[in-house]
């Protein structure tokens, strides 16, 4: 065997047993560099996201939209951009916003969203007239089932302990059927699926959703008959933001969290694909070499 062949075999073996921490460094660089450069990527809106955007955009003024924050800080980077975009669109459409959570961790995220979006960008909105924070209630699908029948049975107060009947925008709310659209943001249990099964289908209430990318393939089959539309992961958020900017140019100068995620996403996906291809190429080269050096397999 020549020196060249030995060096080549040594290189292949080294590459095949590459330390996973080196790959981590490449992924970290692929994520960090686009972030530091402030690069963002515009995503063309796909039909499933467009359907959701158009549905909200055709809601008449004063429509009641229930937003359920069914996620936590761990998935907030993916979900929060969707929530922000939907909230901005709903406010532009002059909808009434009812915010609640079937996840305990969603409770604080409702408060955070109210501070960062509603109070800072739309200070003219009045609590109790334009939006309300109903907070978290335990019960998962049992809670949703009960809300279809009697909303105030579970929500006797808002998140701050104010009697529900003393809040003006809660006056005509008897059950979930009084809402024009229900949005569930999440991806775990309970989440969009439970809203479809226990509220949307039995109550004939339109359900829209924004979910983590992991759960998106499991929820796509519900569109279009049981879901108005769906935003899947960071890409779904970026698509919705793109639709929002196109429809409302006033947002074009505003930093969009979903779009800023997409450049890092794209670069890191290229890096991952490169390593997947490299790993497969090295595997086949190694296999062929082993086959050719086996007794009886010499060429």
């Amino acid at each position: 065997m020549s020196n060249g062949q030995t060096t080549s075999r040594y290189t292949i073996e080294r590459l095949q047993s590459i330390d996973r921490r080196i790959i981590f460094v490449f992924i970290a660089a692929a994520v960090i560099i686009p972030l530091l450069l402030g690069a963002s990527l515009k995503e063309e809106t796909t039909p499933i996201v467009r359907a959701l955007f158009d549905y909200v955009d055709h809601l008449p003024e004063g429509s009641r939209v229930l937003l359920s924050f069914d996620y936590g800080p761990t998935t907030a980077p993916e979900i929060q951009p969707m929530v922000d975009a939907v909230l901005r669109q709903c406010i532009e459409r002059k909808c009434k916003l009812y915010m609640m959570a079937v996840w305990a961790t969603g409770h604080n995220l409702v408060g955070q969203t109210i501070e960062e979006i509603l109070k800072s960008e739309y200070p003219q909105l009045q609590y109790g007239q334009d939006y309300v924070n109903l907070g978290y209630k335990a019960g998962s699908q049992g809670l949703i089932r009960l809300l279809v029948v009697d909303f105030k049975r579970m929500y006797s107060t808002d998140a701050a302990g104010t009697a529900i009947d003393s809040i003006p925008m809660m006056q005509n709310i008897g059950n979930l059927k009084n809402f024009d659209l229900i949005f569930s943001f999440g991806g775990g249990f309970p989440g969009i699926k439970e809203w479809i099964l226990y509220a949307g289908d039995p109550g004939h209430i339109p359900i829209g959703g924004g979910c983590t990318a992991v759960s998106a393939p499991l929820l796509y089959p519900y569109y279009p008959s049981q879901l108005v539309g769906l935003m899947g992961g960071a890409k779904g958020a970026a698509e919705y933001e793109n639709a929002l900017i196109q429809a409302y140019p006033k947002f074009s100068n505003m930093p969009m969290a979903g779009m800023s995620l997409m450049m890092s996403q794209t670069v890191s996906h290229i890096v991952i694909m490169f390593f997947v291809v490299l790993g497969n190429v090295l595997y086949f080269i190694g296999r062929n070499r082993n086959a050719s050096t086996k007794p009886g397999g010499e060429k």
Partner: protein
Amino acid sequence: MTTKRLTGHIVLGVVLLVCTLSIVVKGLLVTVGALLTLFIFSFLYKDNPYYKFAEHLFVGVSAAYWMCMGFWGTMVPNLFGKLYPPMVGSVIPALKDNPPEPFMVIPLFLGVLLLLRLSSKAGWISRWALAFIVGTTAGLNLVRYLRSDFIAQISSTMIPLYASGAAGFNLGETISNSVIFLGVMSGLIYFFFSKEHKGVFGTGARTGIIVLMVTFGASFGYTVMARISLLVGRMQFLFDDWLGLIR
């Protein structure tokens, strides 16, 4: 002093300096958040006590958070506040004048039964409450899953293979509907084991495998996207909220 110890001291000194500066400039909470993030990331290098500390802290805080939210968000207003409203008057004044609901004794009783699980002698009684929960959940799920996940999904698959609208023949929708039909049928054939997978049936089963592989691939791709999103979120926190390096 060995080189390894000296390096350790230098790293510790740099970390302490960065932390002190961070506390002064960004505040304590952001600094603690950043440090805990770095502790968790340190697992990527190798398992270590800092990672273990952050992991245990997360588990403990999460458990306590869910318990407190359940108690103050649900038990206080929806159980105690309905059973005897004056009891929660000091916490939620809006409820103190509501009429009491004596039937709320039943969920309270079932809740106490569940807690008997902590007793070695009376633990078996908790099964009654558990049986109620399992029975109710099974009943609720059976009906809803049958209607929404089974019948409604079959109905959604009954789509025309020749799609046409007001503008005439729609090629895109026809292809899309055909892919859905073939995907569902071949997937079902693959999981049908009462007939040997040979001939036309075998071709259908092999197509089913391809459809399943494509589905798994799409799911894996989405999973990668989800994990990268979480990484980007943490990096945004470190480089923007903490270090202020992102424009």
